């Protein structure tokens, strides 16, 4: 029921009351109410001007400022309510509470809009003008549209990836990297933060007067091989090359696993580049360091920016090139670097793959499927989204990155069904490994 209708009903009932009770007073009171309503209706003729300003480039999930300039063209106070009824689906608006616009006043109202990704034409908001007695209102719709492009939020993608991975990383590392804990006690040592309280050796603690915990032996079978992909896809990039990160990670892993027999195989798109046989010797780390002379592919040298040439090959052309490239390189057969790398592995080993999963995905899946029965495998993959040079970001790149991110999510899920797979960013390095190993 409308507010005015209460008063209209009252006037009607007063007339009925007057008629039935043969009393003129209720009719006069009803007449005064009708005149009052007529007065209010005659006086309510609001006129306003409105214009909205908003940035053309917005970021998904980040509050964008919407500035609405309003001008009261009448000499009456008006109560204004902003209604964002025409926002695209998924958008949220934090509109201000109703406010008073004085006679002939011009006011700029600022409020937030939370957009979702895409390109949209945003219509101006509905401006509801209410009379001061709040009986009537008129809606003004400004006939204008602003085209905005909402980019995906790179920070959000990063945060999501990081949060999810950070939670899983330590436990996965511990399980996959160091093997399962056995019940056989290896030694006793001082309690350190993070140790399970169930492992406290109470007798030794009582004897020595400080917390002592049991250190259990961990099962680990055979050699450990770090299989590093140094293909073109891994070496792309200028500032944050994935190969830089991968080599650092390899070194850190090799150092962390120095108590075990660790070996390294580095391969590229065409074959095995370096191979360090698994060994427990002191020189092993040095051998591995020497093997890791892999440089990223630079797209600009000496500050001279080279033109970016990109062309797309058809599916047939790509298949054809895939077949003939090994021949051009003087190689026979269809075996790529990855297949060559895994062909010479011992019968049982713990394999740590560091690879870009998007370059030769089907081949990688095939290899992992074959190896997982004989070997214990961990796949570490640098996420390209997290390695992208921020200074080069533009609308197309962001959209492309986001698309790749989604595709990658699916792929990671698929790979995780095969072997434990970790999606890593540039900073998922020291802390994670240290946390897992301590």
């Amino acid at each position, binding site marked *: 029921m409308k507010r005015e209708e209460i008063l209209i009903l009252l006037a009607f009932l*007063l007339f009925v009351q007057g008629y039935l009770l043969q009393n003129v007073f209720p009719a*006069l009171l009803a007449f005064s109410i009708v005149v009052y309503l007529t007065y209010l209706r005659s006086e309510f003729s609001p006129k306003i001007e409105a214009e909205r300003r908003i940035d053309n480039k917005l970021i998904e999930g980040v509050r964008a400022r919407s500035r609405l300039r309003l001008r009261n063209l009448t000499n009456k106070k008006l109560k204004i309510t902003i209604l964002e009824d025409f926002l695209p689906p998924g958008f949220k608006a934090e509109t201000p509470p109703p406010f008073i616009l004085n006679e002939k006043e011009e006011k700029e109202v600022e409020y937030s809009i939370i957009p979702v990704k895409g390109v949209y034409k945003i219509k101006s908001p509905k401006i509801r003008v209410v009379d001061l007695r709040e009986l009537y209102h008129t809606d003004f719709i400004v006939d204008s549209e602003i085209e905005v492009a909402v980019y995906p939020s790179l920070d959000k993608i990063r945060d999501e990836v990081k949060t999810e991975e950070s939670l899983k990383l330590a436990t996965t590392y511990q399980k996959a990297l160091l093997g399962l804990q056995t019940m056989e006690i290896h030694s006793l040592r001082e309690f350190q933060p993070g140790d399970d309280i169930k492992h406290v050796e109470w007798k030794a603690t009582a004897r020595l007067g400080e917390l002592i915990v049991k250190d259990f032996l961990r099962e680990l079978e055979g050699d450990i091989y770090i299989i590093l992909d140094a293909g073109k896809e891994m070496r792309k990039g200028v500032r944050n090359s994935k190969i830089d990160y991968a080599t650092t990670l390899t070194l850190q892993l090799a150092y962390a696993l120095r108590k075990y027999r660790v070996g390294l195989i580095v391969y590229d798109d065409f074959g095995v580049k370096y191979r360090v046989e698994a060994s427990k010797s002191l020189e092993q780390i040095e051998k591995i360091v020497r093997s890791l002379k892999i440089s990223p592919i630079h797209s600009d040298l000496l500050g001279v920016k080279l033109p970016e040439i990109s062309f797309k090959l058809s599916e047939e052309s790509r298949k054809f090139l895939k077949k003939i490239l090994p021949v051009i390189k003087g190689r026979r057969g269809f075996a790529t670097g990855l297949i060559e790398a895994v062909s010479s592995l011992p019968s049982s080993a713990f394999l740590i793959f560091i690879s870009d999963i998007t370059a030769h995905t089907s081949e990688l899946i095939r290899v992992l499927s074959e190896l997982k029965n004989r070997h214990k495998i961990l796949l570490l993959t640098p996420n390209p989204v997290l390695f992208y040079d921020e200074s080069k970001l533009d609308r197309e790149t962001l959209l492309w990155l986001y698309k790749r991110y989604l595709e990658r999510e699916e792929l990671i899920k698929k790979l995780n069904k095969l072997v434990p797979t970790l999606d890593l960013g540039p900073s998922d390095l020291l802390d994670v490994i240290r946390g897992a190993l301590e």
Partner: protein
Amino acid sequence: MIGVIAAVIGGLITGLKTPLLSPVIYLSKFRKDLFLILFFVYCLALGYELEITNIYNANLITIFAVILPSVSLLDAGLRGESRGLVSYILVVAILIGWFVKEIFIIAVLIALFYHFSKDYPKRGVFVVLVSISLLTVGLVFGKSILNMLGGSSTQVVFISAISILIVLLFWRKFRKTELAF
């Protein structure tokens, strides 16, 4: 506040009890919907309490002493009132009006004009004047038909007919605010 004081004094002048409840209605103005419903009941109660069988023999001061404060109360509840020197002077005048009825009516009328002048009315003044004139002229010219024994029902019908005419003449189409209940 003027509306409440005027209603209470008006009630005291006319010897009615219902206007003494007006402060309760005024206090409900912070919830406009509740205010409207209470005002609804208040008006119906007033209609039962004050009886005028023939408008031509009625005491106009009694009619104005109830109707004008009621309108003032309604607008004060819906729009709110501003306080100032003029308001305080009018309150004093209304209080004096308790003893001199004519002063009360004039003070309430001035209070109404003062209150509505803040709207900077244009068309509204014309509409109100035409509406009241229509009723007055109608009652004057229709006296021979309307002023008869037991003619109160006919007078009610005449007043309601004038009201419908006003509605037809001046009401424009509007979007109305919903009750929040």
